[in-house]
């Protein structure tokens, strides 16, 4: 009896622990030749392996354009395989939209292809990349196995690119990470905002130069001509709805922090304040609010001293 039990337990362990970690990525065609791989609306965890980010690719007539490579080597490999199931065209251009780890740690997989990023993004990656990667190992564990920082090798200075019937326009912004690349495909009217826009998922602020700067840049985005918006995190949406939600949240957060500082609240007291009811339903809202207070409150507090 005992030996049966032992065998049963061994089999159980086997099935639990030997299941290979897999993201099971799927791509959705949201516009002509335009595919989005949507991540979960969550925070990094050992369950999601860091797949909380959106990556996207355009299958032009002259090769694939890939926007962001995901959080790990494993993600990058799965993404490359996925692209291969959709088209035989080679991957022609890869862009890293900004220096946050979930957007570029899949670069290793594409080491044989040119990887473009804003010059400042490359610098920020060189400066912080290793620390980010280390933190990702801590947060998601074995999903990161063998992942190393592979820096972009092409500083992006282009403003436009015409490729295989797609007219792409590049815009350099700063609101989210200090260097943020936004791409507009004028042919399909798809706007790829990366983390300049989060939708239905609370935004993150660890490297924002200034919330007001971010708000100003959102106003520029809103004026562009596009039909579909692909955010860095959250679902694809039609029109400017996602930008409006972002701007509302940023304006509210800026005001909340300024008023709290004027009242002399301590950081802990600000953390304990309730969220505005408009934002309670956003994924990870409470946690990201607390993180934002930690990132930003000191600036507002400093401005209050006599």
């Amino acid at each position, binding site marked *: 009896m005992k030996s049966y039990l032992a065998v049963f337990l061994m089999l159980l362990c086997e099935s639990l622990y030997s299941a290979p970690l897999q993201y099971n990525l799927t791509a959705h065609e949201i516009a002509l030749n335009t595919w989005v791989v949507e991540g979960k609306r969550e925070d990094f965890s050992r369950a999601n392996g860091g797949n909380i980010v959106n990556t996207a690719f355009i299958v032009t007539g002259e090769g694939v354009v890939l926007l962001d490579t995901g959080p790990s080597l494993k993600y990058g490999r799965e993404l490359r395989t996925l692209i291969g199931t959709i088209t035989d065209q080679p991957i022609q251009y890869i862009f890293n939209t900004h220096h946050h780890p979930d957007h570029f740690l899949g670069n290793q997989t594409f080491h044989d292809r040119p990887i473009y990023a804003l010059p400042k993004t490359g610098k920020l990656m060189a400066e912080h990349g290793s620390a980010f990667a280390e*933190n990702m190992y*801590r947060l998601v564990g074995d999903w990161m196995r063998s992942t190393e920082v592979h820096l972009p090798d092409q500083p992006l200075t282009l403003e436009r690119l015409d490729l295989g019937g797609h007219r792409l326009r590049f815009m350099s912004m700063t609101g989210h990470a200090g260097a943020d690349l936004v791409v507009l495909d004028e042919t399909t009217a798809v706007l790829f905002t990366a983390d300049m826009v989060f939708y239905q998922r609370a935004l993150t602020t660890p490297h924002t130069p200034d919330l007001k700067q971010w708000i100003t840049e959102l106003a520029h985005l809103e004026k562009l001509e596009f039909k579909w918006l692909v955010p860095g995190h959250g679902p694809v949406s039609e029109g400017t709805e996602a930008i409006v939600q972002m701007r509302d949240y940023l304006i509210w957060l800026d005001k909340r922090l300024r008023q709290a500082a004027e*009242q*002399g609240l*301590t*950081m*802990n*007291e600000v*953390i*304990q304040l309730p969220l505005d009811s408009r934002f309670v339903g956003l994924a990870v809202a409470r946690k990201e609010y*607390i*993180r934002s207070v*930690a*990132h930003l409150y*000191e600036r507002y*507090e*400093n401005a*209050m*001293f*006599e």
Partner: protein
Amino acid sequence: MVRLIFLTLLVAASIVRAADPDPLQSPMWDYTREQFIGSAPYRFDERIVVSLPAFAENPTQVPLQIDATVLAGDIERIIVWADLNPIQHIFTYFPHPDVIPKISLRFKVQQGTAVRAAVLTQSGVWHVGSAYLDAAGGGCTTPSTGNASPYWESHLGETRSRAFPLSSEEGIRFKFKVIHPMDTGLADAIPEFYIQQVILRNSREENLARLELSQPVAENPVISFDLKDDLSARAGEYLLWMRDNNGNEFEKAL
């Protein structure tokens, strides 16, 4: 005889049970308790509020607030420490009976740890409040940012402050920020250099609040004290005095 032994055992058992178990089950509780409150009587008291974020987003600047208003007027001192920091003691606060025993500052954390506020009452019993902080770590062994820039050298001890009316209670809050690297001595080749003493005096030369700080207090400390006073009546009546471990003294009228 057997009965006597049995009774002795029973008594011994009840004494063991009388010692409150640590609600956070920290492996260091017995050691840190011994170090900070010795064998004095104590109890865990949820009314002593230790406010911390659940996670240390920045391990070099973790906001911490202690609220012991429930024991106001009956407090000898409040000792605050982090069980698993390499230097456990964060600060000791000696509040005057007229102040509201609520204080906040930021500190450095090395790893996830229980944080304690032990409040000694005049009857000699310690009331211990606790909270757990999760952290990726490294806050105590990271060089201060001041170490990489010469800004602090020409601004050492520079203090900016402001008084705010308290909304919920009658009183005012003094919040101040002082430029100081607060080096722990645990980062490679950087000696410890930190403010040890902070005293807030009123115009009658009474110490309203006295703080003894240790190395884990965060760089460029931001500290707030709550006082029972009327904001309109104060005008320059308070003096803040500080001294660091190198003997530098800093003063500012609030």
